[in-house]
């Protein structure tokens, strides 16, 4: 019964509010407010106090009761105001590996001058994670997002909630937006990494001379190791440059889906995922070949992500272009 009501309510709210697009400003028409359990208890307490005050015709007790009644009503307004006007600037996810836990990061801004206390965000029925925001502050909040399988984890709606300032009322709203988190296949597999694609022409195969060959300087890219940066040049006020050597230790690896015979699709993807991770951390160059898809040899964080994303979405509907 409860679940049914909840579902109906969710559908009604979804219809009422429509789909949101970032940045979202929480306006009054989408904020819902009800007393919490503590608030209901407090109300009962006030009724008892009122009866006692009237019974004894006691002015002090009545005044106390009236002050607390006003307090409750003001706290309702304040609870509403605690969430009103909050802006959600961004909702981003970091790709993660399957069977782990990823996170959804919300960037929340308080555009007003007054502080906001314990703004909570949650997915579904989870206990909300909360932050305090002083006036004009921005803060990010990370919500745990389970990643059971590879592919895309979709979040339909995000709950934004607050019970502050006094815990007597609960103001909340739902945000509906297509949020997706990419889940890489779980890196798992016992097969040895295939060494170099020797049959492929044009691939340099170097013997390990113990001396890296100087290739030249190139602009800094995300993911480059700080050790490779030409700091001396930077000190001479030139832009960040990276010294490139031919990676003598690094071989070219070829990871081919078709080559993994005798395994199921998922097991193959997991094996490939494991190889990609290992090769990247060893600083090697690698190439990924999937049926109908080929990612040319390279290395670096971006390359790793491209490979893992391809593995994650392999064979699933709605592949990104």
């Amino acid at each position: 019964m409860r679940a049914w009501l909840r579902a109906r309510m969710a559908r009604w709210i979804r219809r009422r509010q429509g789909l949101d697009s970032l940045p979202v400003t929480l306006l009054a028409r989408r904020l819902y407010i009800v007393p919490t359990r503590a608030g209901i208890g407090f109300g009962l307490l006030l009724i008892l106090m009122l009866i006692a005050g009237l019974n004894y015709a006691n002015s002090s007790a009545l005044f106390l009761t009236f002050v607390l009644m006003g307090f409750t009503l003001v706290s309702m307004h304040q609870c509403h105001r605690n969430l009103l006007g909050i802006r959600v600037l961004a909702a981003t996810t970091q790709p993660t590996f399957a069977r782990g836990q990823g996170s959804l990061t919300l960037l929340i801004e308080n555009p007003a001058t007054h502080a906001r206390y314990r703004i909570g965000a949650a997915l579904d029925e989870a206990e909300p994670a909360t932050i305090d925001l002083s006036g004009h502050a921005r803060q990010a909040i990370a919500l745990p997002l389970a990643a059971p399988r590879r592919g895309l984890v979709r979040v339909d709606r995000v709950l934004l909630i607050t019970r502050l300032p006094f815990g007597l009322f609960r103001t909340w709203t739902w945000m509906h937006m297509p949020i997706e988190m990419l889940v890489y296949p779980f890196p798992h597999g016992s097969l040895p990494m295939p060494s170099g694609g020797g049959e492929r022409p044009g691939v340099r195969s170097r013997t390990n001379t113990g001396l890296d060959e100087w290739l030249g300087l190139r602009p800094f890219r995300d993911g480059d190791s700080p050790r490779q940066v030409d700091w001396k040049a930077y000190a001479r006020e030139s832009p960040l440059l990276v010294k490139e050597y031919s990676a003598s230790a690094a071989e070219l690896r070829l990871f081919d889906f078709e080559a993994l015979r005798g395994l199921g699709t998922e097991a193959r993807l997991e094996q490939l995922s494991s190889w990609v991770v290992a090769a990247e951390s060893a600083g090697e160059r690698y190439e990924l070949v999937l049926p109908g898809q080929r990612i040319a040899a390279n290395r670096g964080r971006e390359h790793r992500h491209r490979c893992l994303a391809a593995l994650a979405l392999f064979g699933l509907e709605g592949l990104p272009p």
Partner: protein
Amino acid sequence: MMPRRSLEWVTTAFAVGVALNMDRVPAWIPVLAFGFVLWRLLASALPVRLPGTLTRSALALLLVAVVLIRFRTLNGLSAGTALLVLMGGIKLLETRAQRDQYIMVGASLFLLLAACLDRQELLRSPLYLLHAWLCCTALGVVAHANSSGSDPRPIGPPSAPIFGNHAAMTLAARTLLYAAPLAVALFLFFPRVPGAFWAVPRSSVARTGLSDTMTPGSITELTTSYDVAFRARFQGAAPPPEERYWRGPVLHEFDGYTWRRGPGGPYRMQPLEYLGPVYRYQVSLEPSSQRWWFSLDTAKAAPNTRVLFTYDYQLIAADPVTEVTTYTAASHTRTRATGELSGLGRIRETALPHGRNPQTLDLARKLRADSRSDSAFVAAALELLRTGGFQYSLTPPALGPDSTDDFLFKTRTGFCGHFASAFVALMRAGGLPARVVTGYLGGEWNPIGQYFIVRQSDAHSWAEVWIEGQGWRRVDPTAVVAPERLRRSILDLLPDAVSAPARFVWSRPWLNGVLERWDALNAWWNDRVVRFSYDDQLRVLERLGFDAPGASQLGWAFASALLVWLSWVAWQLGHRPRRIRPDRLARAYARLCHKLMRAGVERQPSQGPLAYAGTIDRLRPDLAGAVRPLLLRYAELRFGPPRPSGQAADLTGLERDVARLKLAPSTETRRR
């Protein structure tokens, strides 16, 4: 585990709640509760164990039993408060979850309610407000400290805690201030239901005041007290000082040492003929836990139906005075009885204990024999007191069981009680019906409030003698010995005998002035606030312009006050994002951009100053020469490294140059 800050606030709220009720329950109860508080606090800091469920339940049962035995009931304010204090203490021992903490705050508020129900003095009301503030702050802290989720992961630099104790207190105070207008409106307009829904036995705490017995020393104890007995406001002229006798318990039975009121009986009230002017006045009695109401000597009738007007002209209420009580009465200070004293009454008012005070009896017989009339006998006895070397003192020597003999023949030093007792004994021994009247004499005029304050230190006793043809006549033997007592307060008369604080006040006129104001304020508080009733509500409405207001007008006033307040709060708390005024540099830049926009090159939101300069180079090369340096200077000031000197001058220079800049509109604009 309970957050430490939350625990501190919750325990403080509870402990203060207990402290507010300390004087109404036996001392061991708050001591035990404070013990529980200490235990809980220690357990959160040190490796001290908290009791388990079984221990707690056993403790709770035991304490309920003790309270039940001690109070013989769980109904009633005292027993209820005691129970609340003890059970709250035990609850504190198991307080961990947020729910428990909310319950503790609720219990603290209930303790505050109990304190309000018990005592409503002006001096205490700020304490009550402070405690309400404390509880509300605790509520905020509990809500804040406990609402972090199971996995809170705020990202970014750890900011300073913005909801510290100070912020919590400010927030609660602000919320309460917003609530205050509503509270006042509700106080004025929320319809007070007259009468109680259910009767609860009131507590009777022993307080100072006149009792229905008098021993030679009993009134002396009262005179050291500076407490207020009642306040009296006369409509019209007040009686002269020597007639300000406030009648309290009339004592009829004497055992040689103690005077008692004795049981009632079929005694008739003599019809009276009133002499002299009538005095109308309003009395505000302070709680005394006694049933006596006081009237200026002889009242004409009972002020209301809940008060008995006895045959000896005393006002006795049905219930003890446990809260401030106000009534109006009319009195005469001189009367004459038109009826006869009944035989039964005569026997009662001339009775003396057998075999006690033999010397007094002999003396009375001698005086009686020498007097030709009742009046002469009274005068002879008074003359004896005046000339017999008697002294008026607050610290007389102790008397034996034959108190009047000891007093009249040995010590000859006494206070009003001694004189009245001895005088009445003499009268009775001489066959004249006489009785002791206790009450108050005088009162201190408060010029600010225009009323008399009658204090316990004004307690007095005098005699009434039945004289044929005149009825009961007031005779004050003390006045013969110490005539100045009639006009001056006891504090004035015997400064050494009274308590140190009272003496301190008395010797400093300015302080006395302050206290007079304070007392007037108290009287106003008691009259206008504490006893604000349904009738007063209607009076307020009348003043607001309603004709013949009733319950429905009250409802309207109540509803409209609520509405006005709600809109005020909504307006106050409404979301009104305040614009931050940009700094000087930003304003200069905005002005520059505005000029450029009017010249036809608008800056795109995504463009920084350097990119903008590039756009201008491309679109309006004619302007670039003037504008580019300005944009570069802005970028340097905004994003460049801070320089210790010259920055302010550069900023001023940039502002000046931007202001002077004149840009030709674009050729396209001109063409149009």
